[in-house]
């Protein structure tokens, strides 16, 4: 290298010395050769630099194209996910959809056993109520009601498994596992009952009749998973505990939340109730204990809104006949009784000859309204007296009662 030669280094430091050194012909030839070598090396380096840059530019160009492709894919994917969320998200929360989208296993058929809390809600006397309404009105009622309930269930991270007419089947603890599923479900049930005030106000605005809902909650082991065929599968729950929840729900009157012993145990001392009672549902061997919930304390603290009912004692008691129902079949004896009082929360006081069992379902026909069937459940019983809660109160009967003079 030229610059490594001490003679040339001296020249570089002191240009005046160059003339002296270049005067020597051998040194001059050496200098020219060295400059030529430097020039060649310089040319190579420039070429190397330019060619490497060209390669870098080419790769950056490809990178830019790839970035555009990825961005387009991201947009497409977001559209797809938004669509899935929109279709699916009416029934389950975003959390659930995201979990399923994130795990490929989520899309496979098959199930697993899991302990969950099941919530079933149903409208009291909805079939009777529908009889006097047009199909558009029925759908309008259901949309207002189901929309409000779905929102509450979503807030408590439950996932709606099914709407069965006016009934809702929701589960807590799947597909996303939740340790506190019993508590969430019971608190959700109370929140749903509280939301009924808003629902009925909205229905009234549209000139639609008010609704009453009962809710059953139960914790038990079920099979969860994608059930069905490859073409049509849904994430669902099956098992006897689902049926048992439905039975528990059937013991409710409007505005009530009944929960099983297993759900009550999970909540422990955070559960507030009016008490408990034993029932013997069909198809269940042992009697089961059911708790009548008024509230939940602790992290999900929520309580029922209790407004004390005011009895309207009728100036003239109304004669009626009732039939005790076994299941949904009517067929018992017609028993005469008197309706002596009622309130604005669908309760009525009956004067009866023989005592009535608690929670018996009755069909009532007032002498003043022959042919109009009302349904009620016995909620309190004393000798000669029974308090019933209407589970289906035809409008004609409601109007008749409201129109009758009350005792001062």
């Amino acid at each position, binding site marked *: 290298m030229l610059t490594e030669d001490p003679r040339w280094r001296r020249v570089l430091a002191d240009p005046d010395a160059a003339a002296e050194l270049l005067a020597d012909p051998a040194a001059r030839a050496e200098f020219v050769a060295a400059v030529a070598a430097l020039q060649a090396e310089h040319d*190579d380096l420039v*070429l*190397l630099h330019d*060619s*490497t840059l*060209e*390669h870098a530019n*080419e*790769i950056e160009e490809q990178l830019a194209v790839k970035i555009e492709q990825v961005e387009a894919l991201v947009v497409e994917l977001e559209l797809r996910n938004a669509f899935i969320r929109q279709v699916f998200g009416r029934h389950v929360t975003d959390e659930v959809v995201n979990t399923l989208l994130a795990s490929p296993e989520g899309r496979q058929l098959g199930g697993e056993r899991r302990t969950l809390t099941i919530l079933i809600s149903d409208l009291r006397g909805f079939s009777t109520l529908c009889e006097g309404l047009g199909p558009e009105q029925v759908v309008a009622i259901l949309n207002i009601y189901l929309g409000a309930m779905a929102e509450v269930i979503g807030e408590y991270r439950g996932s709606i498994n099914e709407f069965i007419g006016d009934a809702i089947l929701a589960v807590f603890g799947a597909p996303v596992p939740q340790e506190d599923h019993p508590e969430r479900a019971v608190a959700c049930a109370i929140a749903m009952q509280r939301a009924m005030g808003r629902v009925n106000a909205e229905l009234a605005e549209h000139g639609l009749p008010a609704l009453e809902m009962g809710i059953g909650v139960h914790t038990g082991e079920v099979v969860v998973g994608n059930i069905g065929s490859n073409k049509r599968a849904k994430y669902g729950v099956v098992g006897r505990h689902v049926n048992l929840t439905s039975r528990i729900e059937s013991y409710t009157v409007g505005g009530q939340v009944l929960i099983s012993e297993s759900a009550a145990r999970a909540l422990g001392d955070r559960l507030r109730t009016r008490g408990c009672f034993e029932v013997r549902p069909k198809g269940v061997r042992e009697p089961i204990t059911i708790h009548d919930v008024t509230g939940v304390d602790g992290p999900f603290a929520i309580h029922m809104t209790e407004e004390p009912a005011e009895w309207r004692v009728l100036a003239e008691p109304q004669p009626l006949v009732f039939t005790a129902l076994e299941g949904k079949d009517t067929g018992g004896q017609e028993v005469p009784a008197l309706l002596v009082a009622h309130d604005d929360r669908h309760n009525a006081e009956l004067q009866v000859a023989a005592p009535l069992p608690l929670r018996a379902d009755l069909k009532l026909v007032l002498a003043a309204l022959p042919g109009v069937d009302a349904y009620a459940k016995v909620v309190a019983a004393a000798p000669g007296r029974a308090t019933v809660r209407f589970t289906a109160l035809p409008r004609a009967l409601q109007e008749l009662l409201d129109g009758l003079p009350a005792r001062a």
Partner: protein
Amino acid sequence: MTDTTTRPSGSDTDIKGPGYRVWFDAPARTVHFEGVLRLSTSEYKPIEDLLDRVLLDHPALGLRMTELQFLNSSGINMLYKFAIAARKKGDIEVKVHGSSTIPWQGKSLPNLKKFLPTIVIALD
């Protein structure tokens, strides 16, 4: 000069790292480049040494790039420097096998001719 710190694994004539392999097939006198090469300049040292050695020992050489999906700037720089070294050594035949389906190869491999005019570039 052997740099053992950056050598990933394998022998002097078979260099393997995450996602790439560079190896010399002695009977075929061909250096195979495979996978994705995105090392830093200093990390290319073992490959540079391999190329220097085979350049010294063989008058004819093949470089097979058909399985090399990606080569970063430090990598192409090393390859161009190898071409300069081969030109300076003189009396050597180098043939490069590339693939036109790998976008960067169609652009960057023909540039080897600027450093080594006698090189043969075959793109399939």
